[in-house]
């Protein structure tokens, strides 16, 4: 008879041999962590995969240029997705479509795949935001990435530039990422950081206001009924947050007013240019929100208030702008001036969030739609370099309208076309025949402002 100890020992051996699957046997020592260093080349480098850079990269790839897109975060879309402003606009004005192209294609694909409905663009709204299109942000992220990859764009997430140099007609951009240190040699750069970061690194002039508009951390509350609250017992300053903003629901049926509620807290001085700055903006926003939630829960009817959703990071409105070949001013914007080198439209009220408490707004008069000249996307004294997005060369008031998503998408597409043509011709974007740029943009579905 087998002794108990021997039996247990043999059982252990059997179970180890029979039950342990083969994949558990592959343990090995790995090489110590090493940063991978390499030099890679491309025709076009797009820096920043946000609202603007995503469109610029897709356009560049579709126009047949080798394209690399570097993005410091983990997904595309920026303010539209990570920042939670998932209601891009404005693509239509006064009954007509004014911004089309790749940005609109992405929005439409998102609306259709999610089974949503478009707002009625034929009806001129009493408030501009009614023509913003509510989209499913996670779906937008997936579609944006798919379109980039399909266009042959090489996406490099978690990567950021550290140094830039122009040498023998090429840009050499050094970047660091998780375990990577890369030199990207390219013909043309499109700075879509929103913060004119690369323009500044390249030594071009960038400007910043003494006081910048606050950022916004977007969230959603639940667990209470606004209509049932006794507002006389709640300080007025909290009413807006409790009421929450209402995005017109894309699934609105019949006469019902159905809305997607959301809210935001202001984050004064929010700046996403550096990790430190963006961390502070996130810390500040989250801290403000946490204290707000604690405070709101003390009010009658809000005892069960819940934080239902919180966006990943603080979305930023205003940081740096380039000093471009042309600086758009507020009069250019509000008069709807159509420049000879206009490459895209823009439509939004002048919309300056001043001190975190009030907003200066000026609406465009009927039939007025602003246009954006290519020169505003080119820094003075620059070579083989463009910007697109909110760092467009403009005064503060014009910028407060230009910064919105549809306008940024239009700029991204235009900058990419200019960069691709410049790359093919071995010149700087400012030297490319503007009609060639307009023709190629039209070919890719963009809407070019027309002189009346």
């Amino acid at each position, binding site marked *: 008879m087998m002794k108990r100890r021997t039996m247990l020992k043999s059982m252990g051996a059997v179970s180890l041999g029979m039950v342990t699957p083969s994949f558990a046997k592959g343990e090995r020592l790995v090489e110590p962590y090493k940063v991978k260093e390499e030099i890679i080349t491309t025709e076009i480098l797009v820096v920043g995969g946000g609202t603007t850079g995503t469109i610029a990269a897709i356009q560049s790839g579709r126009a*047949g240029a080798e394209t690399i897109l570097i993005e410091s975060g983990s997904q595309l879309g920026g303010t539209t997705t990570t920042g939670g402003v998932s209601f891009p606009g404005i693509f239509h004005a006064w009954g007509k479509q004014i911004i089309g192209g790749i940005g609109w294609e992405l929005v439409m694909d998102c609306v259709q795949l999610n089974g949503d409905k478009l707002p*009625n663009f*034929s009806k001129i709204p009493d408030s501009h935001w009614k023509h913003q299109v509510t989209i499913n942000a996670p779906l937008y992220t997936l579609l944006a990435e798919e379109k980039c990859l399909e266009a042959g764009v090489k996406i490099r997430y978690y990567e950021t530039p550290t140094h830039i140099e122009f040498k023998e007609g090429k840009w050499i951009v050094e970047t660091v990422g998780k375990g990577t240190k890369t030199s990207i040699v390219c013909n043309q750069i499109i700075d879509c950081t929103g913060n004119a970061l690369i323009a500044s690194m390249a030594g071009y002039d960038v400007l910043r206001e003494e006081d910048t508009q606050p950022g916004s951390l977007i969230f959603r509350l639940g667990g209470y009924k606004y*209509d049932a609250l006794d507002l006389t017992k709640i300080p007025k300053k909290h009413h807006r947050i409790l009421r929450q903003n209402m995005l017109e629901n894309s699934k609105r049926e019949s006469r019902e007013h159905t809305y997607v509620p959301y809210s935001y807290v202001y984050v004064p001085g929010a700046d996403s240019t550096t990790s430190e700055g963006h961390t502070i903006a996130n810390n500040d926003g989250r801290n403000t929100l946490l204290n707000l939630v604690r405070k709101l829960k003390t009010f009658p009817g809000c005892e069960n208030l819940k934080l239902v959703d919180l966006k990943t990071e603080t979305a930023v409105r205003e940081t740096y702008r380039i000093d471009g070949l042309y600086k758009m001013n507020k009069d250019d914007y509000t008069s709807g001036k159509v420049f000879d080198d206009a490459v895209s439209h823009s439509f939004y009220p002048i919309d300056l969030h001043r001190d975190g408490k009030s907003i200066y707004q000026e609406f465009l008069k009927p039939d007025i739609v602003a246009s954006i000249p290519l020169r505003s996307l080119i820094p003075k004294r620059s070579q083989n370099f463009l910007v697109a997005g909110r760092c467009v060369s403009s005064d503060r008031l014009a910028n407060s309208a230009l910064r919105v998503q549809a306008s940024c998408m239009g700029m991204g597409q235009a900058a990419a076309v200019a960069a691709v043509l410049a790359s093919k011709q071995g010149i700087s974007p400012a030297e490319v025949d503007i009609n060639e740029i307009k023709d190629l943009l039209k070919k890719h579905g963009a809407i070019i402002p027309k002189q009346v």
Partner: protein
Amino acid sequence: MIKVRYFGVVIVGLIGLILIFFQEKYPIKYMQVATIESSPAGEPSIVVTFKDSVTNETIYLRKTKDNIPLHYFKKVIGEVCYDDECRLLDIVVYWNITGRYLGFELPKGEFLSKYDHDPFSENEYQRLHTLLADSSIPLDAVSFEKLVEQPKNDEGVVDAVSGATSKSVADMVVKGAAYTTYKLWNIVNGPTMDIVSKLTEKHLTPTLIYRILQSPDISDRLWALNRMDALNVLTPQLEDTLLEIISSDDFYLSYSAINAINVIHLKSVELQRGLFANYPKANHSIQTALLKKLIEAPFLSSEIIQDSRVLLPQLNGQQLNDLLQLYTKHKVHDTKTYSEVTKILKNENKYISKKAYSFLINIQTDDEFIMERLKAYKN
């Protein structure tokens, strides 16, 4: 001086008397543009009645003797009270056959008044009429009590990030007649609106849809487009109207018209051809919508295959992708089309040539030319 003053008083009095006379003789009536203009004067119309399933009140439908519905109306009698004082509200509310507000009419001698019992002025009637016509005002979202409690806009609560701003009471009502406005707005824009729209839906014919599509009001045309599904066949007249709308530069109307077409309608070769005829000059987003619609067709007209083939060399990558998807769905496999697509393999733009490659690699062919080109492309 006294004479002048006396004269002034007399003039004002006379004007007042004239107004009262007209009010007695002609009822107060405000009407918007109608979906279908009433039949010519003198032509008899028929009135039929329905029960409002929500309020159990009677809804009247006026139609021509040819059975073309013109509008619905309802008599509203109730009380408007303020500070425990009440006044009778006696009014007839009209809706277009699409449910869109048409107007209101007061019986002879009746008038609307404000909380101080002052009668409405002409401007106030006009403002009420404008407010009632705006179904986007959120007066159905709040109780009257909440409405009058609302903070005003000037308290710095406006938002412009996406900007859904709560309208102030002043923006939504006639001054001094908040409850009258609130009550009437909720009648006009309440359940009856959908009830009458559904009543019309039940009697839709190609002729009626055609008539509604001629309405000067865009929301009426959208109403008709959204209900085209109910028709199994489109008359040539309707097809022409649809194609005309699709060719307009109003994106939303054009897009809605494309989406109004269903699979059964696409059996019509003429409609297919008309749709594709819009393709070359359409906005890119409309082009995509047109091809997606043709993908739904039970078959693809041979003329479209021929006409689209000519366009192949000039398309951008995205347009090419849409067209090749159309060919794939309809199993287009004629040698001429294959040959044209094969030529695209030589396009310098890799994004474009790759689309052609992906299409050709999935077709069943032993054509030597195509095989050779595919091999060359891969290498």
